[in-house]
């Protein structure tokens, strides 16, 4: 029985070629319906942008049309990629009012104790929250220190040289399809420049910038912290932001110069119809430090993996994250660190909670390159499952290409132990409160990293999320 093995064992590859051509074909056909040069030019014109930015947008569009959507991660089939233009250019006849905002969102505002004046602004239905008073005082303080804090549109005009030099260099449009989309249609966002040696004592909050038109969908944040300077920047707020345009493809670029430190905190609580495909990245030079604090509570699907590139000797990255996935949510979050210089250190510490059918995924990457001798990294991921309808995955990758390294990684998955509940209840605490206490304790290391009012809000949020699931 001699089999012709040469024929039988020829293992066919899946023909990627065919796949790619088909996509290309689709795009050329779809261009009319999809995102066109005309639309992109329109966006640029409206903003009165310099020529180079228009070109940049068109270049990004080209890349966008070439790339395919990620083959990994959560299912985003429901995103109408073919008609991406509907996400970019909302139909002008789509006037919606406070009455159209879903009841549960309205209720959450009330229960979180958010001032009524802010409700409509957060829901994206105009009637903007007047933050000008607070902001004016802040402006004076910042001006005194020589800090630039402005919206991106203004920055492109007034600080053209700096923006031109840095815009989408940390996250190039070629990074992935949604980065390219962002490059083509970005709108709104913040630009912050901290001059050498300046220490900004109060956290800057992008919250004040929510009012900018288009902000919160394709907003671009660029922060440059010069030599020896310090900044704490807070993005977002714990109130659910509601928008009928349910694609968020923002981009955050952080440049941390020699000896500088930047702390970037986010509490994200998008409404539960949102696809949050956000790209955040920091480049850290010699002796610089980036600290990420990231809380993901909202959205239907999130793909968010802030990346730190440790480019200079002794650069440091710290990532602290919490993800809470409830019913109907697939929150795929994590952190990436690339060590490219010697004596660099990083630490990643994440917690996730999944309940009521929610999917929480930690997805990470740690790369130590040939040059990064004497690097150190520790990764710790803990997941808490509150029921067996939910899902929790941990997907880390470590890629080590150096011998002089010290790498530790650990992950744990489990639920609240019956023994711990018994112990707390034996001290007179009800079962519901005992569980809530343990969950609060679980997220405490993250809450600790947040400014007090945010920590309080996060605790309220957790309490809200837990109600009804326990008992």
């Amino acid at each position, binding site marked *: 029985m001699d089999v012709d093995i040469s024929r039988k064992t020829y293992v066919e590859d899946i023909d990627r070629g065919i796949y790619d051509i088909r996509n290309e074909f689709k795009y050329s056909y779809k261009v009319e319906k999809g995102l066109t040069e005309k639309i992109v030019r329109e966006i640029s014109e409206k903003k009165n942008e310099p020529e180079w930015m228009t070109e940049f947008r068109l270049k990004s569009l080209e890349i966008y049309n070439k790339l395919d959507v990620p083959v990994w991660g959560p299912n985003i089939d429901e995103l109408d990629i073919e008609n991406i233009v509907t996400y970019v250019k909302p139909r002008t006849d789509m006037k919606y009012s406070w009455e159209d905002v879903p009841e549960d969102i309205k209720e959450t505002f009330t229960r979180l104790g958010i001032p009524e004046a802010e409700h409509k602004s957060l829901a994206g239905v105009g009637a903007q929250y007047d933050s000008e008073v607070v902001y004016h005082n802040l402006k004076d303080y910042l001006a005194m220190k020589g800090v630039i804090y402005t919206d991106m549109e203004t920055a492109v005009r007034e600080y053209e040289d700096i923006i031109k030099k840095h815009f989408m260099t940390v996250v190039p449009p070629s990074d992935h399809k949604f980065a390219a989309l962002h490059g083509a249609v970005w709108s709104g966002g913040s630009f912050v420049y901290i001059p050498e040696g300046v220490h900004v004592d109060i956290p800057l909050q992008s919250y004040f910038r929510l009012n900018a038109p288009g902000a919160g969908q394709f907003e671009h944040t660029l922060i440059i912290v010069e030599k020896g300077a310090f900044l704490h920047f807070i993005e977002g707020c714990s109130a659910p932001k509601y928008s009928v345009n349910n694609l968020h493809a923002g981009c955050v670029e952080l440049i941390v110069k020699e000896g500088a430190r930047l702390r970037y905190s986010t509490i994200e609580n998008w409404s539960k119809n949102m696809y949050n495909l956000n790209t955040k990245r920091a480049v850290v030079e010699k002796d610089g430090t980036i600290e990420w604090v990231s809380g993901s509570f909202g959205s239907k699907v999130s793909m968010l993996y802030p990346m730190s590139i440790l480019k200079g000797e002794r650069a440091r990255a710290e990532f602290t994250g919490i993800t809470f996935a409830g019913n109907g949510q697939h929150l795929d979050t994590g952190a990436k660190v690339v060590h490219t210089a010697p004596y660099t250190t990083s630490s990643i510490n994440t917690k996730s909670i999944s309940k009521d059918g929610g999917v929480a995924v930690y997805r990470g990457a740690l790369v130590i390159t040939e040059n990064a001798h004497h690097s150190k990294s520790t990764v710790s991921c803990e997941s808490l499952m509150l029921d067996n309808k939910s899902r929790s995955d941990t997907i880390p990758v470590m890629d080590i290409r150096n011998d002089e390294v010290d790498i530790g990684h650990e992950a744990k998955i489990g639920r609240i*132990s*019956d*023994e*711990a509940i*018994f*112990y*707390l*209840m*034996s*001290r*007179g*605490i*009800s*079962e519901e*409160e*005992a569980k809530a*206490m*343990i969950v*609060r*304790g*679980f*997220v*405490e*290391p993250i809450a600790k990293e947040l400014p007090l009012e945010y920590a309080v809000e996060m605790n309220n949020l957790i309490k809200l999320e837990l109600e009804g699931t326990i008992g």
Partner: protein
Amino acid sequence: MIRSMVMENKFLLIRDLHVKVGDKEILRGLNLDINRGEVHVIMGPNGAGKSTLANVLMGNPKYEITKGEIVYEGKVLNDMKVDERAKLGIFMSFQYPEEIPGITVENFLRSAKMAIEDKPIKVMEFKKVLKEKMKLLEMKEEYAQRYLNEGFSGGEKKKSEILQLLILNPKLAILDETDSGLDVDAVKIVAKGVKEHKSEENSIIIITHHNNLLEYLNPDYVHFLVDGRIVKSGDISLIDIVEKEGFESFKN
């Protein structure tokens, strides 16, 4: 009728108690009476059911009562939830206290105290009491801000249990092997704490197999628990019997 009247006068009555853990019957018809203000010692060999008795009094859901009754201040406890028992003044000092990361000792104890007394307690007022009790137990103040039992040594955990006893001030305290694994000095401090708690109103059940702790506390009764039953009760002189003979002669 008469029986129930008698029972109401008693503080704690355990009648023909049978308890299962999984498929295994641990307690097999245990009887025990305790009056207000009394200190009872339960001794017995490993696996006799001492910890089971503690857990079943506190209401650990892993332990199933198959027969018999526990009557506390005239109320049948059998089906009562753990936190309700705590609110009625029952307390157990755990042999292996759980570590609860993220919750500080102070916050935890204030929450528990408020839950038990069902009224708010001012932060400053509570801090004062806590500081006082911690001093008594020779615990450093910083422990108030540490996470509950997390990273505590064996001795620190036991002290933390006694601190909780003093703060929550229960009517019935069950000390499950609180003296095991402690050095002489630590036993002294724990004894000091328990003494502080002892009063005409408060009853204490001490489960142990050493007499370390007993040297400092004057127990009213000593019981031998063997194979799931109380086989002998008497005064402190019983301890000498154990020291000499062990429990062998009480096994069937």
